[in-house]
């Protein structure tokens, strides 16, 4: 499969990249790891005239703490997320999710920024970002702005990212020490998108759940922040009744398509099972 022709650009700063996008107009696309865009281009489902490659924009490659936030540069690869000691210590759900994305070769090039910016409902990191209540830093011709991950996704491949803007970082409040976490994903094989997947982040105090967020991957045209499911856990001891309620609330908002991964009814069921498993694992991992 041969993609269409394009002109190639390799800026070395965000300012240059944004400038290029402004100059080249809407026929330009940004490429990070390329593992979503290049397959689309090979199938001629995307035919940009210009490709702006961010690989040399070194200011977009970092994982750091900034006050009470964890901030991850958009060009950080999934492999770098997995290898990060800081994330292993402060926010291990990211490596757990990254390890369930594609395969080692693809994780070496695929980036966190690409995964969250591209708007593919099959991508795993958007739901994790919603569970962490992350914000995305966007840089464009008129400066920078932040958008909540819970408000970023509008439909399959439609996001709040405007023409000419680049997603430069994700940031979220460092989860409380001792928080419970899990990303549970059912897939048919390594490299597959989720039949359904769930992220759960929660905190326990005195055996009671004091905060919880439950989100879902690939059971709608966008990732879903399942607020009713989250609320069903708060104030409970995460007993069987509470988990049943959360799973039922998550299934109520799931609206998957029937596809090769199964009929919609099945995939909805799997979403419930993933919420159940993720909540149980998060409960076991939480201190307090």
């Amino acid at each position: 499969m041969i993609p269409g022709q394009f002109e190639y650009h390799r800026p070395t700063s965000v300012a240059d990249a944004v400038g290029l996008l402004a100059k080249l107009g809407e026929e330009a696309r940004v490429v990070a790891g390329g593992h979503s865009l290049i397959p689309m281009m090979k199938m001629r489902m995307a035919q940009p005239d210009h490709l702006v490659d961010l690989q040399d924009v070194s200011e977009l490659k970092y994982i750091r703490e900034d006050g009470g936030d964890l901030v991850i540069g958009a060009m950080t690869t999934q492999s770098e997320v997995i290898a990060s000691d800081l994330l292993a210590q402060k926010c291990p759900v990211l490596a757990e999710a990254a390890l369930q994305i594609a395969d080692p070769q693809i994780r070496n090039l695929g980036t966190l920024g690409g995964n969250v910016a591209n708007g593919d409902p099959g991508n795993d990191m958007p739901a994790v970002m919603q569970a962490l209540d992350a914000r995305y830093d966007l840089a464009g011709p008129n400066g920078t702005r932040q958008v909540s991950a819970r408000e970023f996704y509008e439909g399959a491949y439609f996001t709040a990212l405007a023409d000419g803007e680049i997603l430069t970082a994700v940031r979220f409040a460092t989860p409380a020490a001792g928080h419970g976490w899990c990303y549970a994903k059912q897939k048919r094989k390594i490299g597959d998108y989720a039949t359904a997947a769930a992220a759960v982040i929660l905190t326990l105090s005195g055996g009671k759940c004091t905060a919880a967020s439950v989100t879902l991957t690939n059971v709608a045209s966008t990732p879903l922040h399942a607020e009713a499911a989250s609320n069903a856990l708060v104030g409970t001891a995460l007993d069987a009744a509470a988990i049943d309620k959360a799973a039922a609330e998550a299934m109520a908002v799931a609206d998957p398509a029937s596809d090769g991964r199964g009929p919609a009814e099945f995939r909805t069921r799997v979403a419930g099972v993933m919420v159940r498993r993720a909540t149980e694992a998060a409960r076991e991992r939480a201190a307090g």
Partner: protein
Amino acid sequence: MGKMHVKMTVNGKQVEGLAEPRTLLIHFLREDLNLTGPHIGCDTSHCGACTVDMNGMSVKSCTVFVAQANGAEVTTIEGIANADGTLHAIQAAFAEHHGLQCGFCTPGMITRAHRLLQANPSPTEEEIRYGISGNLCRCTGYQNIVKAIQAAATTLNTAAKEAAE
């Protein structure tokens, strides 16, 4: 939208050429450099037959534009054998342990295993299976590939130990 001048280090040698930016790295390697070891299997980044090492990482060269690889350091299966032309321990172990039948996936498997053992010289069976999970083999059922990588790890670790003594 003409061709661009591309320069990279492939198997330790500086190479250059003119290519359209849209040329995939696998096509550049096979058609411009005549390195036909890396194979095109699925052409959709699933099978791993096109796996090469780029800047110290395993990548699928069917999903990298030559423009992105401009300036990179690339190793293909042709660069894996020992300098004296004898088989690398991983290649020898694949032959010894029947790690291949038709051989189509083998260049990708060995190139991937080579990087895996550099990152993790003594992997468990599970780590090997996850490590090669981006490489598909339709003949062997993976058993003998895993055995070959385990055997190669032992050989390489023994050699490293002897060299250190």
